[in-house]
């Protein structure tokens, strides 16, 4: 019953490129990917351009810059922030983002939120794009619920004992986005400038938003 070999084992432990364009060994994974794609395309169930366009969208168009816009708006417009926290679907729609299952949780000096999916890799794609590799791997998924402070320390985020840590395990269809605390020294910055301080990791809750001098 487990005749789905070739899907996995070959790439054990290799978390970087496994492609061999210039001779060398071709993985079973590459063979199976090409075989399934060929069958779907030959049978007319999918087309090559469908696959090309989906890859391109998630490589280029959909990414954390979308979530960063939402955060920057919430930082500059208190009424918008309230709408975002209480009814995210309509607040997101105001910015042209169509997503009806997002819960936004707010970091404050007293409360720190972070997001995980222990059972698989649920992630708010529409606002953050594709998840980073570490989000999908066992170390993060297993440890984030039992020792979040130790995991956050590995990300360089040391939290005071007085801060309450809330970990959100996305086990159903809701997706979670952390609204990071607005950094000091950002008064008077425009929304576009603020958005550049908002990293993907700060919206997962494993980092703070960058201080102004560190913005890229």
């Amino acid at each position, binding site marked *: 019953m487990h005749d789905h070999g070739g899907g*996995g084992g070959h790439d054990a432990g290799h978390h970087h490129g496994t492609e061999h364009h210039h001779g060398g060994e071709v993985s079973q994974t590459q063979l199976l990917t090409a075989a399934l794609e060929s069958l779907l395309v030959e049978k007319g169930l999918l087309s090559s351009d469908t696959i090309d366009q989906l890859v391109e969208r998630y490589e280029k168009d959909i990414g954390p810059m979308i979530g960063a816009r939402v955060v920057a708006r919430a930082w500059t417009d208190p009424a918008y922030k309230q709408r975002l926290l209480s009814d995210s679907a309509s607040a997101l729609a105001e910015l042209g983002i169509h997503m009806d299952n997002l819960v936004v949780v707010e970091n404050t000096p007293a409360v720190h939120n972070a997001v995980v999916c222990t059972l698989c890799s649920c992630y708010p794609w529409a606002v953050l794009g594709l998840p980073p590799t570490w989000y999908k791997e066992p170390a993060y998924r297993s440890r984030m619920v039992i020792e979040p402070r130790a995991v956050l320390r590995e990300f360089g985020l040391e939290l005071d004992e007085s801060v309450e840590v809330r970990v959100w395990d996305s086990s159903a269809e809701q997706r979670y986005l952390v609204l990071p605390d607005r950094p000091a020294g950002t008064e008077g910055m425009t929304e576009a400038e603020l958005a550049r301080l908002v990293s993907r990791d700060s919206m997962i809750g494993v980092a703070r938003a960058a201080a102004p001098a560190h913005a890229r």
Partner: protein
Amino acid sequence: MNGVHDMGGMHGFGPVRREEGASPFHASWGGRVFAMMTALTRGRHTFNLDEMRRAVESIPPAEYLASVYYALRLAALRILMVEKGLVTASEIDAMLHKFGQEPGRVPRAARRDDPALAAGILAEIERLPQRPREAAGPRFRLGDRVVARNQHVQGHTRLPRYVRGKEGVIHRVHGVYDFPDTKAHGRGNHPAPVYSVRFAARDLWGDTAPPRDGVYIDLWENYLDPA
């Protein structure tokens, strides 16, 4: 299913490895896998995400742990394409054999474009999914104390081991969603209320956990009893 995918609270996986490649897709085959899976689930509804997760969870534990994310999705894609009758196992074997004839060459999938099909699938993916109509009103209210059932179902479930038998508090009522335990196995959608339930870190992990920390997890009503 008490599978290795249910990782919350496990030890031994070491530090989080934060290094990342330039592409979010691990390698270019990963992007093809992602696109095929997305097109067949959210684009064509050939199978649903609960079935996809169930197929991933059926991969033997050692292989699961040794495989990168997109390799697990690829294995699930193969299982579901056969299960749903899109292809036969022997068609896959024949295609693998054909590509295997040129060792050392990166296989190139057959190429056939269909702009109308692509546009239709992308538009469908954009569309917000239809939510089930309200079922019976939620049984629990904010602040209610509940206990997660100590149950060990053989099939797909979204009730992780680390909360089973533990007591928590209803934090938020999310609305009504299809029930994955049945939907993953073609046994109907059976929509039911979903709640965010707060579990105190100390109730989950013992007295060494920080006193005010908590884990919030989304649970279907069918997983909960009044405390």
